[in-house]
């Protein structure tokens, strides 16, 4: 028997390899986990999108579970994502804050009037300064922050129905239930 095992070794090695390759197909090597996940959210103070004289800061997001969504009118995927945000606002029972990123005020307000406004409030980050602190490298991105102001999750790219149902909503429910 041991005599035959020797000849099965190459096959066995290949099978192990094939299993890893199969796993590899569903992983994206380009996704780098955000170093901010598990850390307190970076502080910021910006003007509100709808009112240049009113301000909004990280304090507004504290003390409850909240969502920060990075978006812009120049971003095509954000338009694709918008529908999902409206669904999320309804189902998630969590306030969605927007970070209007490197955008202009007028078209952004127009956008919300036309497509519907899922946001509790929007911070207007025309220079992208706050975006840098949050490690944003492209809109859309979505952060989930727990009751203690810790970032629990970062979603890169547009939200999909799948990511909403499988990742975002269960996580929100867990965080809401936590002390």
């Amino acid at each position, binding site marked *: 028997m041991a005599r035959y095992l020797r000849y099965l070794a190459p*096959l066995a090695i*290949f099978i192990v390899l094939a299993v*890893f390759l199969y796993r590899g197909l569903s992983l994206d*090597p380009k996704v*780098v986990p955000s170093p901010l996940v598990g850390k307190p959210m970076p502080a910021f103070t910006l003007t509100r999108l709808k009112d240049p004289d009113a301000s909004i800061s990280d304090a507004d997001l504290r003390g409850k579970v909240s969502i920060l969504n990075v978006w812009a009118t120049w971003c095509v995927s954000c338009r694709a994502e918008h529908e999902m945000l409206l669904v999320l606002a309804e189902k998630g029972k969590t306030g969605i804050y927007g970070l209007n990123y490197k955008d202009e005020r007028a078209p952004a307000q127009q956008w919300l009037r036309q497509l519907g406004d899922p946001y509790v409030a929007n911070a207007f980050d025309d220079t992208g300064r706050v975006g840098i602190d949050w490690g944003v490298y492209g809109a859309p991105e979505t952060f989930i922050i727990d009751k203690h102001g810790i970032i629990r999750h970062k979603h890169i790219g547009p939200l999909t129905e799948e990511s909403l149902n499988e990742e975002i909503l269960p996580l929100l429910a867990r965080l809401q239930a936590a002390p």
Partner: protein
Amino acid sequence: MIPELGNFALILALCMALVLSTLPMIGSLNNTPGWMALARPAAWGQFFFVALSFACLVQAFLTNDFSVHYVATHGNTRLPTIYKISAVWGAHEGSLLLWVLILSGWTVAVSRLSRNLPITVVSRVLAVMGLVAIGFISFLLFTSNPFERRFPVPLEGGDLNPLLQDFGLAVHPPMLYMGYVGMSVAFSFAIAALVGGKLDAAWARWSRPWTTVAWVFLTIGICLGSWWAYYELGWGGWWFWDPVENASFMPWLAGTALLHSLAVTEKRGAFKRWTVLLALLAFSLSLLGTFLVRSGVLTSVHAFASDPARGLFILIFLCLVIGGSLTLYAWRAPAVSSGGRFDLLSRETLLLCNNVLLVVITAFILLGTLAPLVYDALGWGKISVGFPWFTTMFVIFTPFLVLFMGMGPLARWKRQDPGDLARQLRLALILSVGTGILLALPLLHTGVSLPAGLAGALSVWLVTSLFQSLRQRLRNRRGLSGFLRDFRARGSGSYYGMLVAHFGVAVFIIGITFVTQFGVEKDVRLSPGQTLELAGREFRFDGVEATQGPNYRADRGTVHVYRDGAEVALLKPEKRTYLVQTKPMTEAGIDAGFTRDIYVSLGEALGGGDWSLRLYYKPFVRWIWLGGIIIAIGGLLAATDRRYRMKLPSRKPVAAGTPRKLATAKGS
């Protein structure tokens, strides 16, 4: 219309492959001559239809048929004609079609050049190649059809990636594919031998020239890729250890091991199981390379379109081909006899040592290439394996490899007297240690350099032992005419091929070590008219002017290089912006020389006429590719050995018109 014809031809090619892979194989198992006789016509048919299909795609590119999606994405009216043709294999779909074309070409070549082989062997070999063709043609048709139409038709194409608009890269993929796919011949011979249960010297002799030719192509392909990276990417590097490069290097290493192992099996009947396993391994690694490149499981500088659906298809195919062949191996190999015996010190042992070393190096590269994937899959986080890891591994193993390479050709088959071998190697040892010390000490350069000493010692060891081996071989022959007679004799090709290829390795080692040890580079900011001293040469930057190419704009810098007041080179590095895909491309200014390159690449404009520049002095860098070319020439010499072209003396001449079945019935 013509793209549909191409698509239709591809479907017919698939039908031909289905016939080729089934009927002749079944015929060979139940000994039905009529079914086996189908193998050759089916191989030709498959080749014809694939070639027709390929020609249709070339035509679509030449006529700028942007209704074809693939042409619309990668073609352009302003593309120079040569790049319109190379654009055919500039992206995923077309390069797969080229893969299939080359596979069909190899299949036809086997069918044409196998007249001395028994028909059962021929039909099995061709059937296995047909099986591989089925996999790739269906991959094309079902997941990556290059003939897909697109409406509305765009007015202009998306253009070929500017990186690929270069002669080196136009010929690099075909060469590489010739090598990859060529390994399928050795693979098919191995499978045929396993199916027939006959792993003998004849099998090894048939496999050898095919393996060697494929290996030569692979060598040239890898060299071209490395040379291209050097002059096109603008940072003076010639090898990245990028997954895609590793994917081409692993089959090469396995192929090298296979070549040597085949020699032992042919000459001595030993290592049969090991040889057959290497034949399976070499082609499996080629397929694995295709998977890694096409599926996007690893990040790579080679930006190929990646798609999980395609990845899954190749993975399933991989499992069928590799898993199937290894199962066949596990089933058949135990019955194979061990073959010729040999002593602990013999040429067999030395060849086996190097074989194992080559396979170990391959395993390490595979490990390094897949480590990021394995870490990620096990949830251990993200890692990247880079230069230091691979380089350390090479520095550890190569000296042993070269040590045995020096001893191998001098040792006798079966048994070698240790004292005798030591006597023959005495001169090589003295010279190599001497050279090593000389090069390590700061005599010709500043500072102590152990790597340079080691490289020098290894090269001298190798070259001296090769000369010793030649002297020993020619001891009974006089003068030049004696040498020429020996050189032309039957069976000499393998020997002289070995000599030349091993010499190439010595040249390669010098190149690689000297350029890494003594190369100098500098990133600088220069104003027009400013000069800078580097490696004993004076570089004067004379500003940048705008120029216009056929499909790009360029900033062209002028750099004069002086040595002791005399101008030695005038370099014109460029920074190009292509009109359609507006990626900036660097064209380095290179003054190539036998013992050194001077290399300048243009960085960014810094305002006020100032530019950032990278200046390099690269000693012996040409020796890297020179070594590669010499290695390839060695392979060519071995492959053209006259004994492969001669009919075996035992065979009677076949009268014209005699059915082939009868003619081959007497073979082996």
